[in-house]
């Protein structure tokens, strides 16, 4: 118990003193996760809407694949990306191994299916109705699409937040492709894993507090918007 209390005390001191190393780690985490969430969203929303609205041959398989990918273990995403971008791999010439870019790529692989799946589900339920509504009110295709996105905005928002939550909290993929390099690819999750390993509880708890706090804010925003419904 004493360990924990000391740890928390030390953590608060570190945070308040704006320890550069810790804040560097925090910002890098945010940068990587927000970027990957943003890019994933660009891919996932059209994909999810398309899947929800249209039928095509082999759709069943695609959907089943999508659901599988949604619960893809992060370490696998990390492993696959690493195999591709490592110097030995086919994309080695890009020089991406152990960079934040690689981490972003791995996270994109991880959360795009999640956001797509959630948008797909929302579209599946509402899409037909909106399409029908658009038709009966005289909207053209583009207007109907805009209408659909507006109607689905809560679903989309939830999907994006969920994706972000997954990205910022995973450790396996970013550890593998990033290497937890100090000052370069060390993010909150990999830092906590390493610090615990080293017995540096104060720092680990400090970062843990920030991570929790961030989750709290993000979920607070989501909750607030959901309550507005």
């Amino acid at each position: 118990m004493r360990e924990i209390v000391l740890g928390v005390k030390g953590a608060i001191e570190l945070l308040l003193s704006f320890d550069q190393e810790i804040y560097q780690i925090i910002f890098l985490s945010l940068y990587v996760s927000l970027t990957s969430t943003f890019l994933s969203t660009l891919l996932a929303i059209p994909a999810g809407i398309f899947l929800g609205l249209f039928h095509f041959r082999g759709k069943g398989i695609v959907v089943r694949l999508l659901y599988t990918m949604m619960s893809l273990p992060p370490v696998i995403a990390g492993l696959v990306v690493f195999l591709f971008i490592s110097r030995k791999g086919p994309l080695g010439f890009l020089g991406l191994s152990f960079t934040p870019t690689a981490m972003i790529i791995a996270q994109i692989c991880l959360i795009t299916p999640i956001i797509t799946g959630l948008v797909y589900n929302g579209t599946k339920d509402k899409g037909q109705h909106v399409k029908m509504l658009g038709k009966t009110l005289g909207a053209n295709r583009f207007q109907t699409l805009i209408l659909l996105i507006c109607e689905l905005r809560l679903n989309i928002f939830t999907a994006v937040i969920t994706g972000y939550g997954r990205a910022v909290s995973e450790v396996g993929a970013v550890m593998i492709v990033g290497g937890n390099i100090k000052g370069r690819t060390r993010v909150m999750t990999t830092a906590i894993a390493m610090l615990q390993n080293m017995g540096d509880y104060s720092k680990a708890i400090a970062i843990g507090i920030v991570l929790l706090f961030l989750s709290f804010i993000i979920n607070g925003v989501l909750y607030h918007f959901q309550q507005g419904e």
Partner: protein
Amino acid sequence: MKFKKSKIWSILLALLLVVSLLGGCGQAPSESPEDTGEEPAAPENPRVIMATTTSTENSGLLDYLLPVFEEDTGYQVEVVAVGTGKALQMGEDGEADVLLVHAKESEEEFVAAGHGLERFDVMYNDFIIIGPKDDPAKIGEIASNDVVKALEAISESQSVFVSRGDDSGTHKKELACWKQANIEPQGDWYVEAGKGMGDVIQMAEEMNGYTLSDRATYLSMRENIGLEILVEGDEQLFNQYGVIAVNPDKNDQINAEGAQAFVDWILSEKAQKLIAEFGQEEYGQSLFIPNANK
């Protein structure tokens, strides 16, 4: 009223976004060396990837040395800390530019197989056996500087012993000691962790058991754990570090100049002196003994 609340949350979120993007963008390694005239021109490819062991990174030596290296040469070293086995594999795969490990035999094989250009002695530290204060196997009494005797006592009393179990330099050293003692460690008391030094020390602490550790990692964690040094000083426990530049023929990405710059630098008098000074202030003893060109 309703408007205000949602506005606050939205602003918060937007702020978070902006701050982190700015902060994150500041991460780009565009820290160009200051122009003070005497500084060497910034190298074309300043990125040097070093594969080393977790125990080396955890000791803090690199945090101490590398900034000086970066200032002197303009190269930025990115340290990937893994087990010795993985570090050597990374060298073999050409994923790293330079290796700093402590497994001399494996290192020599590595160079002989053509994966590295040449191997040099850099420094050594020593291993110690640490264990619980109450020392159930009594090794502190009967074998305080005899590792073979200590292991015999541990094995006989079936006291918990946590092994690295991860093919690291420390692990290889541990296995070599068991071999010397003619014991094959087996049974519930012998725990193979498959993790880094810090983790293993934690585990030994939790299980109230013994483990073989490098002095540096133990000292850096000493404040937080209750285990004590029980066996030290046995010649067998000396741990030699070597530096190897990876063979640049492996692929286009290898920064051969950077790797060589590091090798030259760490063998230089300046670096060797720094190594000797490391730890003096905090622990009153050198954690590493420099021995390049000796």
